[in-house]
């Protein structure tokens, strides 16, 4: 009950923030302009436009997640907005979980709005709109939620600015991890162990990238999709748990 109340207020606060609305507007403008790239492309213009729109959704979603995720708890501490909340019958873990769920709901709503807008624009421009695109959008949403959890965790351990830098670094590293199997044969025994160990500490964001499969309609296995879904949920759970452990000891 407490968690849903906190989540509800966080959702309302997040979707009304200037950063959230501003980035949605930027997405809309970029998505509209993406058709120009499609026109000048030497290959199939619709495929290029579709790929661009999906990439924009991921990029802007991650930026919103990192920007709002890093501000989520630290700003509450710095501006003391949480004093009036934690002086009520609210446990710190309920506060953190509620904040994350509220932010996750806002980010999911943002992703849904971007998907709706992007797919509508693709349909208007004559590109083929099919179910695989929806799946790609859904998996991008999961990637964004994992990034929100990453940002939340970093902000509990450092300052908001450093957390934003570390969050974006984790995003880059998370996609680099996806390329690790291709690089393994270049590494020697000890290096391989180090690489695998480091990679296991970072969420593999490549697991949520379904853009190519969706754009080129490559075959998708339900088992893989479910596995990646569980992988994303597990990372969110782990990162929120670490955040709770840190915030419980934090001096406010």
């Amino acid at each position, binding site marked *: 009950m407490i968690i849903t*109340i906190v989540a509800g207020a966080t959702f309302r*606060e997040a979707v009304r923030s200037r950063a959230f609305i501003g980035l949605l507007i930027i997405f809309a403008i970029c998505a509209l302009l993406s058709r120009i790239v499609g026109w000048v492309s030497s290959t199939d213009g619709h495929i290029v436009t579709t790929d661009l729109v999906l990439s924009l959704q991921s990029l802007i979603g991650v930026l919103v997640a990192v920007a709002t995720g890093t501000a989520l708890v630290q700003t509450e501490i710095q501006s003391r*907005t949480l*004093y*009036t909340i934690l002086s009520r*019958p609210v446990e710190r873990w309920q506060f953190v979980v509620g904040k994350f769920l509220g932010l996750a709901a806002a980010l999911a709503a943002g992703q849904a709005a971007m998907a709706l807008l992007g797919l509508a624009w693709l349909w208007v421009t004559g590109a083929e709109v099919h179910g695989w695109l929806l799946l790609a959008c859904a998996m991008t949403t999961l990637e964004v939620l994992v990034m929100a959890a990453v940002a939340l965790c970093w902000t509990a351990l450092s300052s908001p600015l450093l957390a934003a830098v570390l969050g974006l670094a984790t995003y880059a590293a998370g996609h680099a991890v996806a390329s690790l199997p291709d690089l393994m044969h270049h590494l020697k025994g000890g290096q391989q162990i180090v690489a695998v160990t480091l990679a296991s500490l970072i969420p593999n964001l490549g697991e949520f990238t379904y853009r190519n499969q969706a754009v080129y309609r490559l075959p998708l296995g339900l088992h893989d999709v479910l596995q990646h879904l569980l992988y994303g949920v597990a990372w969110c759970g782990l990162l929120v748990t670490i955040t709770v452990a840190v915030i419980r000891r934090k*001096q406010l």
Partner: protein
Amino acid sequence: MTDSIVSFSGVTYAYRGDWLQRIQALHAVDLAVPTGCAFGFLGANGAGKSTSIKLAMGLLTGHQGDIRLFGQPIGSPALRQRLGYLPEQPYFYENLAVGEYLDYLGRLSGLERSGLTAAKDRVYQLLDLGDLRGRKLGSFSKGMRQRFGLAQAILHQPDLLVLDEPFSGLDPLWRARFKDVMALERQRGATLFFSSHILSDVEDLCDHYAVIDHGRVLEQGRLADLFGQAPLILTASGPAPAEAKPGAEGTWTLEFPEQERAARLAALPTGAQVLRLERHRLGLEDWFVARIRDVHGAGKRLGDDV
């Protein structure tokens, strides 16, 4: 200390400073706030008032000693249902409107939706927030935020109201209104525990007080007892004792403590005619400044001897 609604026993607390440095904020603080009183918590900047309040609210952890609310150790969320808290210089979410915010905080305090409307109407009326119910808090001035801060603190009619510098940022009219609201809350049965730099307000509202300085409670008790310690001033005419000060139109005055009343009156020179015997009006502000200066010379005026 079962009749104390807030009690500190030997509470020591240190902040983490740079690197491994520890900054001692409280030293073996003993404090007892009697149930039903209006308690003024006085101290200079950095004396430890807000730290003590935050410890009682459970916002800071890692203290040594025992802190109790309603006679029970702090930590239980259920206890916090019975208290209202206004932090120092409060900030609130910018994108929530007054009504939404009160809904949010009221529900966190356990108010049902049915009771929430009446509770909101009550605080709208007390703090003139009715016309602002749809306005977002991001557009509020400091004084308006303070009004909202008090509204959220009293929304659920708590048994204990903890206010950290409640008069900060208020103009004289709103200071007066805040005092009225706090008096009404006390009439309702709430205990008031608040810190303030504006000592005349403490004097108007409180019946108990404590003074904290450099993390140590210097003294605490009933305000009436403190005022009872003020010296007596005797105004008389006729033959004067050697230590008397000359007054207007042939009168003289003599100042002495309450304990010496009988001896001093008996020792008056023959023929002296007592005109008035009154208690010196002790200003809390003057007393406080003198008390703190006595300890460590804080806040000396420019030009004072160092």
